[in-house]
């Protein structure tokens, strides 16, 4: 059951940058004129989240999400990224757990049907990797989140992947009894990988 929480987090995961300064205002970093536009290929990709449930790393995923990337290899810093996740498509391979995750104490999918990550610029991390500088909105809470990215060329376009960790409780994913981190850990790892094609 712990997975529910995780799932929420997962949503966030796309964005999965790890730094989380608490900044309330939601940004509106919709991609500007930041180089060529890329969108998610029909084959899609995967957005998984890994959470600790009773001491065991457990995995879930979101089945539906969309990605828009503005990216010019010649000037990566001007990139932009927008990922929108349909929270209702959470899947932990267990119907009961999925339902619980969507409930009011966890994702509250009825009130917050989508999660969104928006970055209007990219920067280099300390280790030299590319990082989206953006904000994650999950369950109505918006926080700064730097998402390390890997962008590679493929025959059909680009492959974008990223991995980050967020704390579910930062986003209120876990109300009431779920505020405890016994049973389900606070940290949720987000693993994101998607194939992109050039937007028409």
């Amino acid at each position, binding site marked *: 059951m712990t997975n529910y929480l995780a799932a929420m987090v997962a949503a966030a995961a796309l964005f999965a940058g790890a730094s989380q300064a608490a900044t309330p205002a939601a940004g509106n970093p919709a991609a500007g004129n930041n180089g060529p536009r890329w969108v998610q290929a029909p084959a899609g990709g995967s957005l998984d989240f890994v959470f600790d449930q009773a001491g065991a790393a457990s995995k879930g995923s979101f089945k539906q999400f969309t990605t828009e990337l503005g990216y010019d290899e010649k000037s990566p810093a001007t990139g932009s990224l927008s990922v929108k996740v349909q929270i209702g498509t959470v899947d932990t391979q267990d119907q*009961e757990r999925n339902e619980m995750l969507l409930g009011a104490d966890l994702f509250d999918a009825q009130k917050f049907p989508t999660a969104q990550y928006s970055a209007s610029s990219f920067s280099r991390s300390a280790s030299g990797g590319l990082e989206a500088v953006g904000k994650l909105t999950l369950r109505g809470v918006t926080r700064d989140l730097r998402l390390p990215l890997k962008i590679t060329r493929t025959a059909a376009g680009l492959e974008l992947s990223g991995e980050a960790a967020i704390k579910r409780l930062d986003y209120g994913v876990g109300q009431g009894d779920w505020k405890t981190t016994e*049973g389900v850990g606070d940290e949720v790892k987000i693993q994101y990988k998607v194939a992109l094609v050039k937007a028409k």
Partner: protein
Amino acid sequence: MTFRNTTRSWGALTKALHWIIVILIIVQFFIASRAHDLPRGPALIEAWGWHKSVGMTIFMLAIIRLVWRWMNPVPDLTAETRAWEHTLAKISHVLLYALIFAVPLTGWLMSSAKNFPVSWFSLFQWPDLIAPDRALSESMESAHKILVKVLVGVALLHAAGALKHHFIDKNNVLRRMLPFSRIK
């Protein structure tokens, strides 16, 4: 009491394994029945976490126990038992050994099939035996519950047999498995 078994009595390790497993099986019932009373939530997750950890402990002890049995002599029952008693005892012992493997194993399979991986007291994680599969998780859950009932039934028969030997036949069959007891 010796560490190893003799042809007359069980050794210290066999006795310890026998009684620790008995206690852990009883603990499992308390955890499982508490879990059934809990609403879905973190406390329930914790309860099942304990149940799985204790179950995997029984599984590991069962392996040690079986290996130890192969390495040791087994006290002879024939002098103290009638043929039918001996046969019944043999069947129930084989069943009990099989069940202390099969019950944890079906629980483990059920956890893997449900995508609820198994940890051992949060110290390490057991690998998933199979990929998530709803139908399989349901059949493993039924198997787990049925095997538990069989285990209880056979264990009660086993205990009744031991008590009969002790109080009615007044022989050493029970005494040689009791901790700290001396065989007369």
